[in-house]
């Protein structure tokens, strides 16, 4: 049922935005789905989960490129017993409770400061800013010939005690700035 809803929302959003935004809208939709899928392949430390039914929060810092699509994508979905929730933040100081954080522009252009503020917090940081993984981010959306690839820097994830599934690592490009 949830699958049907996600599929229907995807189709509706795609139909609504196809004419206005074209290929860009599709890219955002894909990224939104990827954000949702990250939750399937990342494990958070137990101390980061207040209770077993606490919502799994996907946060958006800065501009929101997904519109309502991300909300529609996660609506009604669960990871185990945890429902999904989408929250939007304008400042990094506003982030109190978050599990996956997409850093949008223009803040993504200066990710070091934000990442420094979020250092060692169990938050999976994701962005499509240039060289986000090399600059200390965890997952970087790379658009390559209309395909979205992933670059993953496991070091900050390890520092934040996040466990990224090897399946996710297999489909992504692993970036190790320190050369380890």
């Amino acid at each position, binding site marked *: 049922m*949830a*699958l049907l809803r*996600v*599929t229907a929302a995807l189709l509706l959003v795609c139909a609504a935005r196809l004419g206005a935004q074209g290929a860009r809208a599709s890219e955002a939709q*894909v990224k939104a789905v*990827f954000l949702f*899928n990250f*939750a*399937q*392949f990342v494990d958070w430390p137990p101390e980061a989960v207040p209770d077993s039914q606490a919502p799994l929060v996907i946060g958006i810092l800065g501009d929101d490129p997904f519109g309502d699509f991300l909300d529609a994508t996660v609506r009604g*979905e*669960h*990871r*185990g017993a945890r429902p999904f929730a989408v929250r939007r933040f304008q400042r990094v100081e506003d982030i109190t409770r978050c599990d996956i954080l997409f850093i949008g522009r223009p803040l993504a252009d200066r990710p070091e400061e934000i990442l420094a503020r979020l250092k060692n917090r169990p938050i999976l940081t994701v962005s499509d800013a240039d060289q986000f993984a090399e600059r200390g981010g965890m997952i970087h959306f790379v658009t390559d010939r209309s*395909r*979205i690839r*992933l670059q993953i820097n496991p070091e900050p994830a390890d520092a934040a005690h996040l466990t990224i*599934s090897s*399946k*996710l690592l*297999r*489909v*992504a490009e692993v970036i190790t700035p320190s050369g380890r």
Partner: protein
Amino acid sequence: MALRDWPIKQKMTAMLVLISGLVLLLTSAAFAGYQYWYLRQATRDALSVRGRIIAANSTASLAFSNVADARELLSALRADRHIVAAVLYDKGGNVFAAYPAGVAGDVVPALPGPDGYRFEGGRLIGFQPVEEAGSQRLGTLYLASDLEAIYDTFRLSGVIGLAVMAVALLAAYLVSRVLQGTISQPILALAETAQVVSTRQDYSVRAPKLGQDELGALTDAFNQMLGRIEDQNRELRRYATELEQRVEARTHELQQSNETLRRNAAELLAANQELDAFAYSVSHDLRAPLRSIDGFSQILLEDYGAQLDEAGQDSLRRVRTASQRMATLIDDLLKLFLGGLCALFGGGEAGHIRLRGRTSGAQRRVQGTNRLGKFQACPFILRAQVIPPAQCGCQHHCDDNSHHDQRRSMFYGPMGGFLRRFHGDAAKSILFQLMAGLCAHRLPF
């Protein structure tokens, strides 16, 4: 040749081989059936496990749309030559990646089917859901495998089974040829002994005993039966010999008895002749003159007594007394003779002559005329007895009722042997005179 006519050795060997073959066949059939079922289950389980592994590793590829990674995953299936096709569908049911590249459309379903594995169209196919634990379904994995693995294993098992069956049957044949002797040899020995007994009539032969089992007991019983038959034959021969000896002895005794009887008959004939002479002499030579003397003396006394004086009458009386005393003496002599005669003829009571009559009618007439009573009244002597015709000793006149009156009936019986030789008036006269002489009565014949 019909099975029932086979030699027992061949029968037993054939039975053992057939039983072994049947057991092997049933066992092989059961094993083949189980193996076929097991191979299908194992193949389905193996494909299911393989599908779950690939599906579990395909989640990220589907989740993050990495077709290359999905193809690489599916290409690992080339290690299994029986995999005909493998397809990853995304959650929309579209083909995401397929193996082998360019696989024919008739092998790849356009849309994923119901989850699960099943045999269909000569293939084993399966639709495996692709989902990360605890999350939404990401897509579907389709796997299609041919059944050559099953058929190959089945063919190999069949060849092995046939080889094992051939070897087992050969071993069963060789073993049965050795083991059947334990049963067939005693039976063959019994049959051979029975054949010898039947053809030669020789009951002294014995069947060899080859064991202590039931066939051994049968051999013992057979030999005991032959022994009893042999003993009985011996006894029969001995009884036959004794019987021949007894018959011969008895025949000799009979011949001696016949000789004695012939001698007795000759003696009797001589005695009869003497008796004839004696009776004739008594009746005619002695009694007739006396009777005349007595009779005429009585006539004289009665008719001419008045003309005689006392001395004449006394003389006549003396004559009569003397004649009567003489008659008494003759009677005593005849009585003595008759006693010996009766003892000679009838073996009965002395002085008792048993005369046989012919019919009950004759007896009735005798009693009616009281003639027989006169014989019965005779003190020493004759008793006439009338008996039924069936017991009649008549040899001459029984076929003529007119001649069989009471008088003739008196000619039969023990006396008949003597009297029978005289017929008609001669016999009547002899008997009359005999009776008249013996009794004081005149018989009205």
